[in-house]
């Protein structure tokens, strides 16, 4: 990886030497070595995290670059969950409570879309958001906004499909009671969504887990730009391909720990509040 850059630099240097021919000294062996070393350091520090520190040290010392990456990852995935829930839950509830021709096909399609490949979502959004694409004027490609959009698209089917299943099951139990109380369509939707809140928490967690663990879509539409769109997953992919395995493993461990912690907290709140409300 370094050799071609080095060659290019040498060529450039020779050209420079020819242009300013009188005063320039010729490139010596030592000079070349020095240049190579500097380039190597430059290449490695493209990722701002110091590679001589172990992953554990990075975590323990609260490395600002690492924290920024974690914060961006969580922020993007959290925003995606909120957006996908705001759109997906009403869709799921609507699908659970209405009957229309083609509903079964839609349900099957929605369930199938739970397994949407992230890279395909990334590619599709890339084509939409790139300069020449139909939404190119928005200028959001390679920004966190595009990453939020990508993850929203990715987890919307998960949240909508799980909501549909939950609400439909609950509707069987509630149908007579709500009909006897003459509850209108919108009221049914909101009542069922609210009364299914503990089950729906699981749907949200499934969505969050998928978003936080996904690398393909954010890589393509985010671009893995250091300090701007680099997330934990894209950083792990990068560090692995660079051969910086300790750092990759450290980031991976952080990712797993965070997902674990969020699930534990959510599960705990769920159990606790379920005990309170029955």
């Amino acid at each position: 990886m370094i050799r071609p850059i080095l060659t290019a630099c040498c060529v450039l240097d020779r050209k420079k030497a020819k242009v300013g021919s009188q005063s320039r000294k010729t490139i010596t062996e030592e000079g070349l070595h020095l240049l190579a070393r500097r380039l190597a350091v430059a290449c490695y520090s493209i990722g701002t995290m110091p590679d001589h520190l172990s992953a554990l040290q990075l975590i323990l010392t609260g490395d600002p670059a690492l924290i920024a990456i974690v914060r961006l990852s969580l922020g993007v995935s959290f925003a995606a969950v909120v957006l996908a829930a705001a759109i997906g839950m009403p869709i799921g509830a609507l699908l659970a409570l209405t009957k229309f021709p083609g509903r079964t096909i839609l349900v099957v399609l929605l369930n199938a879309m739970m397994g949407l490949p992230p890279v395909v979502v990334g590619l599709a959004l890339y084509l939409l958001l790139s300069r020449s694409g139909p939404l190119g004027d928005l200028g959001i490609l390679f920004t966190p906004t595009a990453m939020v959009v990508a993850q929203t698209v990715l987890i919307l089917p998960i949240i909508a499909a799980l909501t549909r299943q939950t609400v439909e099951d609950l509707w069987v139990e509630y149908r007579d009671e709500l009909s006897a109380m003459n509850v209108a369509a919108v009221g049914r939707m909101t009542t069922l969504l609210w009364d299914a809140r503990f089950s729906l928490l699981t749907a949200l967690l499934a969505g969050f887990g998928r978003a936080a663990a996904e690398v393909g879509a954010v890589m393509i539409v985010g671009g893995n730009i250091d300090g701007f769109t680099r997330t934990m997953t894209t950083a792990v992919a990068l560090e692995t391909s660079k051969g910086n395995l300790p750092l990759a493993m450290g980031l991976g461990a952080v990712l797993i720990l965070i997902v674990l912690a969020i699930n534990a907290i959510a599960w705990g709140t769920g159990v606790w509040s379920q005990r309170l409300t029955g």
Partner: protein
Amino acid sequence: MRGPLSDLPLVLEGVSLQAGATTILDRICLTIAPGAPTLIVGPNGSGKTSLLRLCMGLAAPTSGRISWGSRTDPTPTRRAFVFQRPVMLRRAAAANVTYALAQAGAPRSQRTVRAAALLGRVGLANRAQRPARLLSGGEQQRLALARALARDPELLLLDEPTANLDPAATRAVEEIVLAAAQSGIKIVMASHDLGQVRRLAGEVLFLARGRLCERAGTSDFLDHPSTPEARAFLRGDLVI
């Protein structure tokens, strides 16, 4: 919001209900007008629950015609239903009642006060903030009654509300039902407990195999049943 609409009299004309080849209700003709509580009596599977569901408008008859106050629109306006196993919403007892009040169109400003009054009426004032699903079976049934009364009904339909309750809880429910009847609400209630019939009923509808076999005053029915099915049922024979 409701205006002068009334759900009474409830009239069933030649109403039949079929599920596939099975006849659940067979050409029922019936008029329910204001008055003393009507108890629907009959063995299991005689069609008591189905008849009540049709009366509520929760199901549509296969043939025949049902009207509420001469309207055929099944939307419940001034009638309410208490199920054998009521479904409690996952919120506090008081919130269950305010929910019913909201659905019945009560103004927001009155809901809290009226919910408290209704909970007092069913003896659950001290359970207002308990989650409804954590109440005992008898308390849940009383909460279901409070929710039904929140609709300010003229017609209250109850499907064996005491079937799963112990005697104390049964007595509490019966007292609420009697008080409701005395306040002018028409009660139509399914039961297979003859003691309950004697305690509550003003008149009895006897159903067997989906047919309305007998309609009589309580003591007439209990002491001088006119059909062989009713005689067998009262003797304690198995009527199929």
